[in-house]
């Protein structure tokens, strides 16, 4: 293995912390709309715990008074006139849809 910065060696030296329980992973998978088997949830829990051990290092940094940086360039968003700029290309776009009928996208019934 390549000798990385001492900082990361410290992270790897930490015992595998239980940052997440299987129930947390199940909840996140549901929020993310990802079907997962129990075996997949266990694998995800162990891998995500390793990643969160890495991320956790951020908590030691004092960021009081620092403005969050949301974009690389601190420029204001451009505004444009509220007018239609696109032409209607429904047929072109729906030609690649999984299921359409009479110009509508078909999904399982939502409202009884």
């Amino acid at each position: 293995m390549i000798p990385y910065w001492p900082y990361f060696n410290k992270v790897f030296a930490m015992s595998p912390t239980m940052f997440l329980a299987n129930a947390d992973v199940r909840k996140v998978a549901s929020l993310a709309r990802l079907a997962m088997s129990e075996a997949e949830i266990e694998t995800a829990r162990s891998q995500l715990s390793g990643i969160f051990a890495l991320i956790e290092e951020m908590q030691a940094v004092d960021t009081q008074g620092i403005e969050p940086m949301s974009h690389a360039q601190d420029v204001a968003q451009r505004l444009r006139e509220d007018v239609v700029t696109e032409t209607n290309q429904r047929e072109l776009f729906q030609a690649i849809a999984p299921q359409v009928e009479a110009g509508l996208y078909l999904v399982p019934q939502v409202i009884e």
Partner: protein
Amino acid sequence: MINASIKQLSAALAAKTISSVELTQLYLERIARLNPGLNAYITLNPEVSLAQARAADARIAAGQADTLTGIPLAQKDIFCAKGWLTTCGSKMLHNFVSPYDAHVIEQFNRAGAVNLGKTNMDEFAMGSSNETSHYGPVKNPWDTARVPGGSSGGTAAAVAARLCAAATGTDTGGSIRQPAALCGISGLKPTYGVVSRYGMIAFASSLDQAGPMARGAEDLALLLNTMAGFDERDSTSLQRDKEDYARDLAKPLDGLRIGLPKEFFAEGMGSDVAQTVGTAIAEYKKLGASVVEVSLPNSKLSVPVYYVLAPAEASSNLSRFDGVRYGYRAPEYGDLADMYEKSRAQGFGAEVKRRIMIGTYVLSHGYYDAYYLQAQKIRRLIAQDFTEAFRQCDVIMGPTAPSTAFELGEKGDDPVQMYLSDIYTIAVNLAGLPGMSIPCGFGAANMPVGLQIIGNYFDEARMLNAAHQYQLATDWHSRAPNGI
């Protein structure tokens, strides 16, 4: 011909020494012969490529040629190209034939360039080895048992194997520079906002940026001239005057101040990389540059910060893949929620799902301040370090990646080990700065090593100048793998 620069090819086309059709056929023949062993291209459309070449020849004959007219290029499969299968390396888009062109594709079409095909990539650009592609891994042309790097690994391998004159990539955390380093080619990630992201499938919107990949810096400059420019369809596209990125290529390097971040040269990298990068810096001194030590104290936090911000933005961007309007839909499902969950579970690969999970978690109720907001604040500290460093130097140099190309499967089971391949490149994306990688020699097992050059905002012309002058004095960028 396959080792000629774009400028030389352009001159040959103008002089009618070769036609674009002949040049395109030459590359298509090479692709047919060499691509099965490399898997660099995942979609070819020879009839479309040759039709573009014929149109280019007509334009050249009419005396209306641009620099790139008739030049055969490859496009990373993250760029939507009208009528072309555009998969982003994912099963989710296995059947997505794009109904429109990305801005970058429009620009190349306008210039009359030929599209040879779409190159393989890590799924949704998430990966550093090209092993997460649904379409199989790309092999490194220097040693097919090794990875080409990622996520623009197909492009890097195609350029290194002379399967195109030059090509495009995208870079969110190092995806142009790291594969360029591992495949012994040159790659440039411009300042955030210089190239429009319209039609470029989104991964992490505050970090994603497209750029050129080629054998040499002069080619990069010519490609960037075509790719860059304001586009109102990308809200982050910057309104700036058009510039010629090749304008400073010939300038001597006397007086160039190179900053070497002490953190990059601490015990982080392999000794072969350290030695090769050190030799390159010595060459720069011979060319008239001076060297100063700088410090980027917060750069050690760039990996943790990136693995909060990029997955958070990805989890939001990838919520559009729902099996309703385009892409993969599970063959069997119950209600609507079940359709979403099964389509996404079957359509996304393991690494993409992992990042969606990280992102969903850090953005979920109760964790936002501790993770996302804290990461954004540290992002500012990382950017400020660069601002401070650039008071003392014109460009920053260091390694692109901590090691040369590793073996296929070597880091497969450990996501954190894989994430550390981008340890030197990520901070540049967080700050929004331009960064590039150029070949500077060979390390262990005779694999290429990349020198990273980081510039101040909008300083691409100066970086290209520094790279080009080095490439006039050395020949690392013109070395070819065995059998190529």
